[in-house]
């Protein structure tokens, strides 16, 4: 057999083949994940809802019929009209298209969810690692402070914070992030604590691995699954919490199309103008449902304890 008889193999292809060999196991695991995930109807519904949500976040301004209605425009002549062909979800008290506002509300919710969860992770994960690995007084201090924060229901604490700072989307985000991080400390601390006594961590110590190495190569990679699962769930819950603040009147302010605030205003028009508070409510429900189902599905595939049947 001569070399000429083969078509020349492009280096790109070679690299790909090498890459596939190296990551053979990972790819297989991914395929397994995908397969397991796709077999669960509820997970797929969750994924679908979350994808829809992200689609609306990105494409919202281009697909809504009246984008200016989300930035404070007034059409008092058509206020409070029931759902119709022009206004799928009806109009609100100043004649804005509720469909437009609900769709564009995804952006507000997405911002809130993402920022709250990110801040919570940025604060919570390092503190959790420190507390879990250090032990002694440092752990005590971190965990006790965490306990204090967790001893008040998050909604009440954020209510108090917003009450002081004044209503507004930024203050709401700040307040929610401030009450959200302790959850991550708890999660990571307990995970780190149990990982710390795993033989493979002992083994790493025995071959001379230092603290940073143990944290970054042994503890953190094994915390990824619970973080991903919690993160997904928390996206939904943070959106829900922000909507709750909006409902009380302390969250996002007009003309921001925030769902909770819309329901809050809409309830003044119940029961005769039912569509006003109904559609934002459905939007919250579906979004939170989506993130929850997705989180559940991720837990099923990432957490080996529930994976084995």
């Amino acid at each position, binding site marked *: 057999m001569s070399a000429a008889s083969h078509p020349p193999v492009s280096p790109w292809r070679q690299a790909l083949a090498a890459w596939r060999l190296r990551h053979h196991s990972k790819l297989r695991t991914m395929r397994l994940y995908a397969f397991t995930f796709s077999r669960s109807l509820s997970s797929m519904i969750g994924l679908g809802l979350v994808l829809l949500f992200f689609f609306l976040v990105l494409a919202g301004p281009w697909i809504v019929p009246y984008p200016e209605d989300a930035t404070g425009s007034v059409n008092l002549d058509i206020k409070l009209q029931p759902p119709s062909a022009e206004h799928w979800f009806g109009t609100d*008290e*100043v004649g804005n298209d509720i469909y437009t506002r609900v769709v564009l509300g995804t952006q507000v919710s997405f911002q809130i969810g993402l920022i709250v969860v990110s801040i919570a992770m940025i604060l919570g994960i390092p503190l959790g690692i420190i507390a879990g690995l250090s032990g002694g007084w440092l752990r005590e201090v971190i965990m006790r402070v965490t306990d204090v924060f967790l001893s008040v229901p998050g909604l009440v604490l954020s209510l108090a914070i917003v009450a002081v700072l*004044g209503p507004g989307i930024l203050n709401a985000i700040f307040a929610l992030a401030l009450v959200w991080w302790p959850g991550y400390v708890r999660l990571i601390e307990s995970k780190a604590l149990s990982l710390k006594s795993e033989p493979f961590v002992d083994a790493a110590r025995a071959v001379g691995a230092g603290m940073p190495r143990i944290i970054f190569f042994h503890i953190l990679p094994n915390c990824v699954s619970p973080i991903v699962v919690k993160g997904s769930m928390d996206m939904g819950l943070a959106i829900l919490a922000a909507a709750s603040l909006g409902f009380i*009147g302390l969250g996002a302010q007009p*003309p921001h199309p925030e769902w909770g605030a819309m329901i809050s205003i809409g309830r003044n028009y119940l029961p005769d*103008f039912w569509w006003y508070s109904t559609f934002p409510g459905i939007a919250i429900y579906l979004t939170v449902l989506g993130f929850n189902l997705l989180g559940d599905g991720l837990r099923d595939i990432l957490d080996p304890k529930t994976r084995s049947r």
Partner: protein
Amino acid sequence: MTIRICHFPRLVTALVFAGLLVGTLVVGSAQAFERAGEKFILVFGGRQPVPLLDPSQKYDWSTRMMQQAMYDALVKYENDPPVIKPWLAESWDVSDDAKVWTFHLAKNAKFHNGDPVNAEAVRFSFERTLKINKGPAWMLSDFLKPEGVKVVDEHTVRFELSEPFAPFLSFLPWWYVMNPAQVMAHQEGDDMGQKWMTDNEAGSGPFKIKRWEQGVLYELEAVPDYWKGWPQKKPLAGVIYKLIREAASQKAALQKGEADIVEGLSPEDFDIVAKLPGIKVENHAGMTTFGIKFNVSQPPMDDINLRKAVAHAFDYEAFLKIYNGNAKLQTSPFPFATQGHIDVPNFPRRDMAKAKAYLAKSKYPNGGIELEYVYVQGLEEERKMGLVLIDNLKPLNIGIKMVPLTWPNMKARGSKMETSPNMLAIFATPVATDPDAVAFQYHKDSWGKYYGTHYYSNEEVWGLIEKARKSSSWDERAPIYAEIQKKITDDQPEIFGMLANRRWAMRDYVKGFKFSPVRFTGEVDLYSLEIGK
């Protein structure tokens, strides 16, 4: 792992059974509302609590409604247009310089505990309010010192003002008379009974407290032998003020007959309930003006041309639309019911050509600025006005930043010239029908108050205001107030808005409703009401 369970139906049965149990408890429990005894108790469904009953400490519409029911003042506002009627005072004299006022008290007036209402009680009540220096104290504190109230005899009391004050009488309906014996019996420290008076009354009015459940309801009981008697054939047995915070609940309560009068519905809801059988809506022009105050002391709103541009760009019709026609646009800085109101000629209305012309003359000929619009968080109508502003000012290339603040924070912002926002939405109800009560809002001494956040400055106007309040002759005062209205309009310290109608929805058997525009938004005079069933 699945377990084959033969006995599981047991569990299901238990669940179903429990459900049924709950069901039997509930069915039929939503019973219709009934009135007790031969007499009727009227139920008023209101949204605002009455946290603090003491007339020396606080007034707002719900509080004053209760104070008016339980206390008497020397005089009382009634009717539309409002007139001042003798009440505890049967008559009064005033010196020519409007400095000394003498009141002759009714001889049969007595407090709920039987003590007579005498000159000493009046003196004590004024002294108490002035000393505590809260609530209505500001109305008179500049002219009346505690020492200025003199007991002449058992039934005569004299007020000696430190300087002439023509509108004196118009403020007196809000100065209620309390029983000194009861108040001082509950003094803690030197609080003059403030703590006790929060949830208790010591009045002589037509009603007294029966139940006082903070945050839930307040029940009043009629005083059968009220010293002034009852105007109606079949007086009420009492009134329940029920806190119903949600519009939907208010409507439902009204429909089911669980409430007889409700206030504070949205304009749409009033229109809807008006069409329902058995329900009528009282609809009256009020004295509350809605305006958007500019801060004229700070850039950019110190530029009169910008102010005029904004005022001419604003769509005044939107007010009428928001209220479904149940509002009246202002034609002067003064409300219609104020004495001496005139229709100011060329009062600003929407005119984009003019608006652009004014803008061109201003320092911001091409717009490009963003103005802050501060309003009370939770006030629907103010929020909508904000949205209207955004919409209206877009063509001028002026942006609006809507900032909802709680009332206290908003007041805090407005209390300093530097922090007072570009635009501030204010509902203001003058406490008296005398024009001074409105005109004085544009005086330097009002700066920093919630109605003085414009920091309006015009020496000439100030002079006129001072001159008018010292004169006791109406003929002399009337032209001055006409002049004041025109001058203020010229200076455009605010967008002069509208006066929204006051509306109450009530069952059609509620009779004896007497409207008076000088009362606050939801405030009803409970004294004359009856149930005609």
